[in-house]
């Protein structure tokens, strides 16, 4: 049996059920709003969003793998491409591109073409430190951790903070080999 070619993000996005974009955007907005009320500190909200994203990511990876037919990526470059071209397209409906590779191929940037989370959003002065879309960085981190890649994902450009794009920096810290989980004497 020849390996099945990965499905394109567009095809998968078209085949799943959709919700109204405004409902999605406003729901996310309501969550962030509530977190700001509950946690008060902007830093805490950033952390919480990242954690929520992480929890989503560790589940989302299986849906990604099951639906996209992506098998093992040869290197981190291919991984980054799969996230940008298939992952973001499949779950958010937006494309993304991979740029700014460092010399040893362990750090790159994912630039989103569009970001449906931030429609209707303006950051007030009191929330200048907020990474409004921090949930996305958490998702990427969680998903990659489930395929044995420890990463650090940070926002380097955020349009809500006056930059000209949404840019996520993904840095590969280490790849974790699979080990026999039981001890011999158990």
């Amino acid at each position, binding site marked *: *049996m020849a390996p099945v070619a990965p499905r394109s993000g567009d095809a998968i996005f078209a085949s799943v059920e959709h919700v109204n974009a405004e409902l999605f955007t406003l729901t996310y907005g309501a969550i962030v709003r509530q977190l700001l009320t509950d946690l008060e500190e902007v830093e805490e909200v950033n952390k919480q969003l990242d954690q929520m994203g992480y929890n989503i990511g*560790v*589940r989302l*990876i*299986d*849906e990604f*793998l*099951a*639906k996209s037919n*992506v*098998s*093992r*990526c*040869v290197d981190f470059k291919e991984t980054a491409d799969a996230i940008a071209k298939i992952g973001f397209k499949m779950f958010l409906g937006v494309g993304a591109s991979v740029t700014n590779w460092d010399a040893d191929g362990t750090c790159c940037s994912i630039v989103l073409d569009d970001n449906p989370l931030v429609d209707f959003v303006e950051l007030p002065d009191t929330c200048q430190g907020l990474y409004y879309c921090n949930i996305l960085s958490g998702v990427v981190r969680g998903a990659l951790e*489930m*395929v*044995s890649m420890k990463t650090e994902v940070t926002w380097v450009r955020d349009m809500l903070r006056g930059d000209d794009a949404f840019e996520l920096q993904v840095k590969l810290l280490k*790849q*974790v*080999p*699979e*080990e*026999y*989980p*039981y001890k011999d004497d*158990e």
Partner: protein
Amino acid sequence: MQFFGGSDISPSPPAPTASGNNAHMMYVFNRNGVCLLYREWNRPLHTLNAQQDHKLMFGLLFSLKSLTAKMDPTSFENHEMCSLDKGNLGVPQLPGQGCSFHSFRTNTYKLSFMETPSGLKIILITHPKTGDLRESLKYIYNLYVEYVVKNPIYTPGAPIRCELFNTSLDQYVRSIS
């Protein structure tokens, strides 16, 4: 819809028929070797207790995978990432790394195996005359995504207790021929 563990499970291995009923049992392990699910449809003989049985199965797969990867005469790629450990049996690999096997057959049963890049292992044991089950295992993976992963009550890494998953799994497995 039938309740799982229904009465149509016969005590002896049935002859393969077009209508299926060929599955003996199934295991699902996660990357940490936790047995997330064990389903049994037709297994008259138990030789070990459940925990030993699961551990033995996981150990077999782990070793067999390591063996198949090390015996691979074709690929350089496997060794590049861990070039220091070249040729050493039992050296840890990244999940999904190296070549792997997808089934083996004895005179009384067939074991089909699938591992996802996220380290989930699905093992299905069926009648020896069943055909290629790779697509079936993929389908089961999709069932897992729909009924387990998307279930907000389910804690990742915990044993699966989702009635809906069990029901749809039982139904699907009956159709395997």
